[in-house]
Every structure is written in structure tokens, then in C-alpha cells.
């Protein structure tokens, strides 16, 4: 239901929308553009993994020897050890000028060693390479199995050396936050600010029902969501075309993966509207809606941690916008799309019901 109220919303908000649209274009087009540079740097690092040599003992309890090629301008070397899959919180194992260390293998599990060259006091150390206690493994592939990343990939094996993988992990992991929080902010404020700035009395003294008011605000939000999604589609396809990656990452995939987030955004918008009519305060509504978005995200992430936590995923809206399924597996989950759309409509009906019950504060 798009009428004069929705139109007025767009008319008064177009400046902000334009600035945000510019940001969407810059990031969605810029992300593919930096991919070649990223791929080259990653390739170099992966090759660097071979620059560190790890000798394993034949029997349990023997000695491990770790050696690496010296770097000309290095003042000392650092070795970090990690026995976890994450490689995010390594323990310092060695710090000195020698180019090899030997230590006892008194553990069973797989461990990782990262060797860094310290150049001077002020700059960060350079990575010389990574070695693991199991031969033939690709540490970066394993990194992708980290639950934090798996949260974005749905547990899929994703290569960061391909545009597909890079976009899935880098672009979409901020896109949900950027677009989701933008819509959450707008949806709460277009309604709650009418309360706070005492515009509701005058609005609702015209022959506009509360239902129509809410529906029109919602339709304005739908148009805005469609607008930023279309901008992202244009930006992303443009960027991919520029780096000649459209053969591996089709326009169709760009389109479906981003269109898939529309009902996702509309659910967030409807939650924002329910909180706005319930609490009638911009700050309160915003706090709750933002908390909702992040809570849903964490539910999905935790759901990926283990099988026993999988139920958490099913109550997260992130599960029903599976962009990596479109990008990696070439499969658009239409049923999920419809499910989220129905959820948005149900939430909107709840919002109308709440709004009808509430007094307008004087």
C-alpha cells in the first residue's frame, strides 16, 4: 500500500538515502575490485607456508625441528604455536635470532606454527610461513572450517582464492550488518519520531487509519530496501565485470543472492515497527531492534558450532537467507524466501494490532 505518507517519507528522506546509496555503491563495487590484490597477496602467503620446514619425529615423544630461510632485514624471529582450529589466539613459542628450533613432541593433537620475522620496533612482523604437524594440509582451507567463518558459509568449503569465496565471506559478512542496521534504524525512527516529535496527533486526525499509516510506512521501507539492494546488485556486478569474474560469478547469482536479503530486511523492518509502536521512543526501539539483529546473528553462528546447538539456527532469520547456497551451490532456496516474507507480514500484523491498542502519548 503505497500512498502519500510513503511518498512523503521518501521525499523528506531522500538526501540521507542518497548518501547511504553512495556508500552501498562504493563498497559493493569496491569489494570485487580489491579482490585481485587480495588474491595475489594470499597466494604469496600460501607459498610462504613452504618456506618453513617442519621435521616430525618417527616415534611418539621425539623431537620436532622447525627451520626457515633467513630474511635479510630481520632483526629476530618469532614462532607462534596454536593447537586450535582457529589460529586466532596463538601462544609465543620462540623469540630469538636463530633460524631453527627443536623441541619435544609431547602432544597428540595437530598444532600449527607460524614463523614471523621481526624487522624493527615500529612495524608489524612479517609472516615467513606456516607449518602444521600433519603433512599435506592447507592451513587456510582449515581456517574456513572455523565456526566463525562457517557461520557465513553454512559449513561449505570456500576458497578465498576465488571471487566467489571472497565475495561470500568479505562482502556479505558486512552487507547484512550494513543493510540490516540501516533498515532497522529507518523503520524505528520513521514511526517513533512521529511520536517523539508529536506529529502523531495531527496525522491521526486526518482520515488515515492506524493500519494504513503503518502499511504505508512499511511500504516506504520496502521501496528503500529494494533501492539499496538494487544498488548493491549494480555495484557488485559492475565490480565483478571490471575484474572479468562474471564467468565464475554470474549476474544471476549476484541478483538472487542479494534479492534473497529483501524478506530478511523486511523482517527486521517489521520488528523495528513493532518496537516503535510499542515503546514510542526512537532510542528504545532502536536498541531493541539492533539487539534483535545481533541476537539472530549469534544464534546462527552458535548453531554452526556443533550439532547439539543446531536448533539455534532454525530460529535465526540468517538461516533463511542463504546467500552462499546461491553463490557456491547455484541453488536459490525459494521456500526460505517465502517463509521470511510470511514472517514479515505476520510481524506487521502484530504491529498493527499493537498500534491499535496503544494510546498516543500527548
Amino acid at each position, binding site marked *: 500500500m503505497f500512498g*502519500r*505518507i510513503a511518498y*512523503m517519507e521518501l*521525499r*523528506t528522506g531522500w538526501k540521507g538515502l542518497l548518501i547511504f546509496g553512495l556508500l552501498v555503491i562504493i563498497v559493493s563495487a569496491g569489494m570485487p575490485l580489491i579482490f585481485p590484490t587480495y588474491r595475489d597477496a594470499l597466494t604469496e602467503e600460501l607459498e610462504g607456508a613452504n618456506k618453513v620446514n617442519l621435521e616430525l619425529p618417527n616415534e611418539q615423544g621425539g623431537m620436532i625441528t622447525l627451520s626457515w630461510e633467513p630474511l635479510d632485514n630481520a632483526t629476530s624471529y618469532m614462532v607462534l604455536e596454536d593447537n586450535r582450529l582457529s589460529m586466532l589466539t596463538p601462544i609465543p613459542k620462540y623469540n630469538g635470532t636463530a633460524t631453527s628450533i627443536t623441541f619435544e613432541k609431547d602432544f597428540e593433537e595437530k598444532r600449527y606454527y607460524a614463523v614471523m620475522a621481526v624487522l624493527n620496533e615500529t612495524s608489524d612482523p612479517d609472516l615467513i610461513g606456516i607449518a602444521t604437524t600433519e603433512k599435506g594440509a592447507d592451513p587456510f582451507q582449515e581456517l574456513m572450517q572455523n565456526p566463525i567463518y562457517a557461520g557465513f558459509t553454512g559449513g561449505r568449503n570456500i576458497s578465498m582464492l576465488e571471487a566467489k569465496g571472497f565475495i561470500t565471506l568479505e562482502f556479505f559478512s558486512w552487507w547484512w550488518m550494513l543493510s540490516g542496521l540501516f533498515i532497522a534504524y529507518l523503520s524505528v525512527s520513521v514511526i517513533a519520531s512521529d511520536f517523539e*516529535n*508529536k*506529529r*502523531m*496527533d*495531527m*496525522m*491521526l*486526525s*486526518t*482520515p*488515515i*487509519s492506524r493500519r494504513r499509516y503503518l502499511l504505508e510506512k512499511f511500504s516506504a521501507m520496502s521501496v528503500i530496501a529494494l533501492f539499496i539492494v538494487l544498488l548493491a546488485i549494480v555495484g557488485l556486478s559492475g565490480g565483478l565485470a571490471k575484474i572479468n569474474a562474471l564467468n565464475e560469478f554470474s549476474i544471476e547469482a549476484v541478483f538472487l543472492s542479494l534479492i534473497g536479503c529483501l524478506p530478511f530486511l523486511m523482517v527486521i523492518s517489521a520488528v523495528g515497527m513493532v518496537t516503535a509502536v510499542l515503546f514510542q521512543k526512537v532510542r528504545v526501539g532502536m536498541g531493541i531492534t539492533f539487539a534483535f539483529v545481533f541476537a539472530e546473528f549469534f544464534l546462527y553462528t552458535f548453531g554452526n558450532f556443533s550439532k547439539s546447538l543446531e536448533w539455534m539456527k532454525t530460529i535465526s532469520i540468517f538461516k533463511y537467507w542463504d546467500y552462499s547456497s546461491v553463490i557456491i551451490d547455484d541453488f536459490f532456496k525459494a521456500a526460505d524466501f517465502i517463509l521470511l516474507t510470511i514472517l514479515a507480514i505476520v510481524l506487521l500484523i502484530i504491529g498493527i494490532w499493537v498500534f491499535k*491498542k496503544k*494510546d*498516543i502519548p*500527548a
Partner: protein
Amino acid sequence: MRKRCDAMDQEKVIEIKNLTKMYGNNVGVKNLDLTVYKGEIMGFLGPNGAGKTTTIRSCLALIAKTAGEITIFKLDSHRDAVAIRKKTGYLPGDFGLIPSVKVSSYLKYLLSLRECDSTKKMVSLADRLELDLNRKTNELSKGNKLKAGIVQALMADQDLIIMDEPTSGLDPLVKQEFYRILREEKKQGKTVFMSSHILADVEMVCDRVAIIRKGQLKVVEEIQALQEKTGKVLEVEFGDPVTIDEFKLKGVSDIQQDNGRLTLTIHENLDGVIGAVSNHRILNMNLKTYSLEQLFLKYYAEEEEQERGDA
């Protein structure tokens, strides 16, 4: 007077029966009965916090009722709210405008929500109230914002005009023009229901007044009857000696003298009093309406006392 009342009986525009609105444990209004007839200007008087705004906003279904019934144009205020609002203009007591648009754009927007295409009345009202339609809404002063509110309440040619404190903050000259506009509306058969906390503001234009205090309706009276009852306070400063006896005329009470200054209350026979005053040299003269508080103290204190006794 009586004749007009009979005619009004034929058509009730607003009929409030036994309205109660509670805010938690606090009383907004309690058991309020009030009827506004077609073609009259009804003043709704009461001190701040008496329940005027609560009553008005209940009529417009902006708040839910705790109990009671409100019928407007023979329709239920809450069930048929949208149908009622088609024929009703409303000025809220406190309101904001959409910022950063021209006043004319904003008013046209509200007109369009009322599905009214003609901007003729809007332009003429703005002109008469000296409201610049080309200003941006966020640049308006408090008085000009109120004018914009008044214009929007009247511009779509509504049959019923409900206004919450339309006169507080208007310049005296603009106020006079506003009264003229209301009288014209009335002549066209429109009904006006407006609240105020200042008696002087409503007596200029209203046919009847309803007085509310602490959530309860105290008085509903024709304005003339109320004026006769309360009277006006005349203060005169004379340049020559006067005696109190000269002013002991019909319809005069509470005569007080302090040197050359004389204070008295006139209920009727205004020309007689002025005649007596003009026998002397007048240095200064001031005719005042009782304030609502004075009115209560003087005429309804008894009832208050009784209530206090009951409590």
C-alpha cells in the same frame, strides 16, 4: 436565547456520556457528560491538567476510553473514527510538523490525506492570520507554528472543528482575526469545540462554556449567563474626589475604594456604571474579566468545600 437552544436540541454533534479515562491509578476524566450542538461554539474551560486534552483526545480516538460512550455525528468515536475524522478538523494542544519542508507543502500534504484538492481556503486563512506559507516548517516561531496548526484544522472545510488551546500564544490582533474566522465558520453551520484555560479567551466567541476541574465537569452554561453571574471587574483611578455611594447601582457589587482608586464588580447595567464614572475626571480605567481561578474561588468554592468535607 431559549429559542436557539431548542433549535440546537435537534442536532447533537458531539455527545459524551459518562466518559472516564484513567491513567493507571490517576484520573484523567471521570463520569463526564457533555453535549455539543450543531452550529454552536462551545468553550471548554479548565485549569491546566483538568482533563480538557484527555476529553478532546478521547473524542478523536487518539486514546482509548476506560468507560463511557462518545458519539460524534451519530457515529461511535472509536469504532467509526476514520469516518468521523473525514468531517472533523483538529488542532492538537501540542504538535510538531514534518521538518525541512515548506509550510505550504506540509499543509498540502495534510490536505491530500483528507482527499481535498482545493487550496483556496488554506491560502486565504494563512493570509488572514499572517502566516507565510513559503517559510520552512522548522523555521517557524511558536506563534507561527500555532497559526499553521489553526490553518490545517480549518482548511478542508470540516463540519466539526475541535481545537485544544488555540488562543494561547496568539498576538491580540491575530486573536481577533481568529475569532472573526470562527464566527464565520459558525455562520456556515460549522460546530466548534475549543478548549482554553483563560475565561477571557473564550467569552469573546463562545456561545456556551463547559468548565472542567480535576477531571470532573463542574458547569455548563450559556456564556451570557456566566458573564452575568461572574461580572467584570472595573478599576478606575479618579482625578477628583468620589464617594462609594455614587456607584451603589443596580448590578454592581464588591465596591472598594482606596484613595482615588475604585474597584467594583459589574454584573449588568454596564452603561449605568459608565455614566456614573464619566461624572468625574478619569485618570486611568481598566475593565477585566475574572480569571478562571477567581471564578472558582468566588462562585464554586462552596461546592469545593463540600467535596473536601466528603473526602
